[in-house]
């Protein structure tokens, strides 16, 4: 029966290609949707991840950076620096706002960094200075292409004019674009003189980040301190939880669509070959064997479609980076496994669709004209 299945599929290669492409389209939709959420989740933690401080210190009760506010009195920077095991404590300010230029508006997190301290800043530059001088800003390079900005042009951040000192790369995403201005400028903008948002702590060699974080919490009043990995995990989990339900529904729709498409192909094969099936039945082939053949056919289509969707997704990632740089895409093992499991389930469910047709085939029809 397996030979028959393969032969039947290969007899109509165009139809096989069309079936696989259509089902792959359904899987690709699910993968792309998951990829967008995964890509955004990665970008949400980009600043923490790329800054690479051992411990992050923030206001007590705060455990995130994304979509939250943290304020710590500035005297605590010195208090943290004095804790045993701390090599360096670097304060930053952080706020979310809109940036305007050339009639466009972007949502952005703005980080205020000490002008003479390169500890924090963009990790990849497209043009200009990596560290903003007073009155200047380093903004994602996508702003340049969106609004035709050049170095030295003006952007409005929180209602105040800033000169573009540099364009950074890998700092733009839908939910978490990052711009950099000088610490003093942002303090003015936020009316937050005497406060910092986060303190980045570099540990002395050999000091365990978790132990250092615990020590800071114990010795400096009303602060929270988290090792970088834990801080990253907190923000990543927010992004994942925000998209969980919508991803589940999109997987459901994409899966249902794939079931219907695969089911249609298998059903079409059965209806087109009723005479052959009748001959088989007349020759003593059991319904069970025919079901197995249908399952094999569905599994081949589902499997090929899954592989094609993965290949298309792999091709889509670099293409998207070039053609639609605002979209951050990432593919996770979880997403691949989920879509793979969906493909398997889809194939098996789809094979059930033509069952009634198979059962109703009368072996006698093999001998009728």
């Amino acid at each position: 029966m397996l030979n028959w299945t393969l032969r039947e599929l290969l007899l109509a290669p165009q139809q096989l290609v069309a079936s696989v492409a259509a089902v792959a389209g359904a899987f690709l939709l699910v993968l792309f949707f998951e990829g967008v959420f995964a890509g955004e989740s990665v970008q949400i933690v980009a600043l923490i991840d790329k800054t690479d401080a051992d411990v992050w210190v923030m206001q007590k009760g705060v455990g995130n950076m994304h979509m939250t506010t943290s304020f710590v009195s500035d005297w605590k920077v010195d208090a943290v620096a004095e804790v045993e095991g701390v090599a360096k404590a670097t304060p930053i300010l952080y706020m979310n706002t809109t940036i305007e230029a050339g009639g466009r508006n972007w949502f952005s997190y703005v980080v205020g960094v000490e002008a003479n301290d390169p500890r924090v800043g963009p990790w990849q530059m497209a043009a200009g200075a990596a560290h903003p001088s007073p009155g200047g800003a380093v903004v994602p390079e996508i702003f340049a292409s969106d609004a035709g900005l050049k170095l030295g042009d003006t952007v409005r951040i929180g209602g105040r004019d800033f000169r573009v000192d540099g364009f950074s790369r890998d700092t733009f995403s839908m939910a978490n674009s990052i711009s950099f201005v000088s610490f003093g400028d942002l303090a003015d903008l936020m009316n937050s003189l005497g406060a910092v948002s986060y303190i980045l702590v570099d540990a002395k060699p050999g000091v365990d980040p978790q132990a250092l974080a615990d020590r800071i919490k114990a010795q400096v009043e009303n602060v929270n301190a988290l090792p970088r990995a834990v801080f990253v995990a907190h923000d990543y989990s927010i992004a994942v939880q925000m998209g969980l339900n919508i991803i589940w529904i999109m997987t459901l729709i994409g899966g249902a669509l794939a079931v219907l498409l695969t089911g249609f192909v298998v059903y079409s094969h059965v209806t087109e070959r009723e005479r052959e099936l009748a001959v088989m039945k007349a020759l003593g082939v059991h319904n069970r064997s025919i079901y197995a053949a249908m399952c094999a056919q569905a599994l081949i289509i589902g499997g090929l479609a899954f592989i094609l969707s993965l290949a298309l997704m792999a091709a889509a990632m670099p293409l998207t980076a070039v053609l639609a740089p605002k979209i951050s895409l990432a593919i996770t093992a979880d997403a691949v496994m989920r879509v793979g499991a969906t493909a398997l389930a889809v194939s098996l469910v789809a094979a059930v669709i033509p069952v009634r047709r198979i059962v109703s085939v009368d072996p006698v029809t093999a001998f009728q004209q």
Partner: protein
Amino acid sequence: MLTLALRNLLHRPGRTLLIVLAIAAILAEILVLEGFMTGTYQQLRRAVLSRGSDVVLAQKGVHNFVATRSILRQQVRTEVEALAGVVATHPLAVLSLVYVRGERRMPIIVFVYDDTGGPRRLAVGQLPQSDGAIAIDQSIAQRFGLAPGDTFTLSAYDFTVSGVTKGEAAIMTPFAFITFDTLIDFYFNSDVGSDIAAFPLLSFLFVDAAPGLAPATLAARIEAAVPDVSARLPADLARNDENLGRELFAPILNVLLGLSYTAGALAIGLFMFAAVRARQRVLGVLRALGFTTRHLIGAILGEALMLTAMAIPLGVLIAAGLGRLIERLDPVYLLPITEPEALFRTAGVAVIMAVAGALVPLRALMRLDPATAFRG
């Protein structure tokens, strides 16, 4: 040819049903995406429009209500109230916090209001009038199993849930509401107390205009008198927030919609290709009877359009069901599926998909040999 197309559809109802269901699933998926986009923009608009008042004051240069930070001087309220044409002012402070319970985290925007700017609709319970009371959106209540009377701990401060609001969320973030008395209590008793200087006490000021005074005139008057504020009409802020939402979401949603349209055209193409293959002999007979390729293309096109026409209402029904399901599972989402603009757009795209799909078996139709009709 339409009669032929109709007969073909009725000849194998099982196959027709499968195709209609598949096209409906594609349309449902497109409508859910459209609904997600429309709902996101509606939520962004509502965030400020639901707060009431004629004019909204923000920090100078701030032109949005959601997703931005605004801090006003406390004295601004007195200065504005002294102006002619101002009937009343209503302060509003906005805090971004993250609610944590176990391993689960949810960002929340807390609105601190006085007498205006509170929640529009309560699902259960009451407004947060007593000290320490908080009204939370049903998306928070549902995700964490909270009800009026329960304790809601934010930044180590124990609020008491007074009520659960409906439809108070934007950009996947629910809102919560407290009064200024509770805010002061929160600042002094929670972990943020020692760093209170940096926290906002006044983010926006809502202004009621005197009867007969145009809000735009009042806004201009306020900006002239108080130079460090931006005075905007709620509708302007709502439009700015919506535009910001479009800037954020449109690139991604447009790609997803483009992928859906392609998948839809591919699926319809598959169906039509299979239809031509299955009916090669019938089509050969038609060619032998003198029907031209154009006639046959017309029949296939007619069939594709009929299938799509049957799938559209079903797709809308499925999408409406899914929209309700998503909103019920997670009320932070708003998915208005039956917005006429999105419906017409999707129906139009469905027709284009049908036409594109019907062209897939074009080559097979053109190569169709009338002799097929006479082969065994």
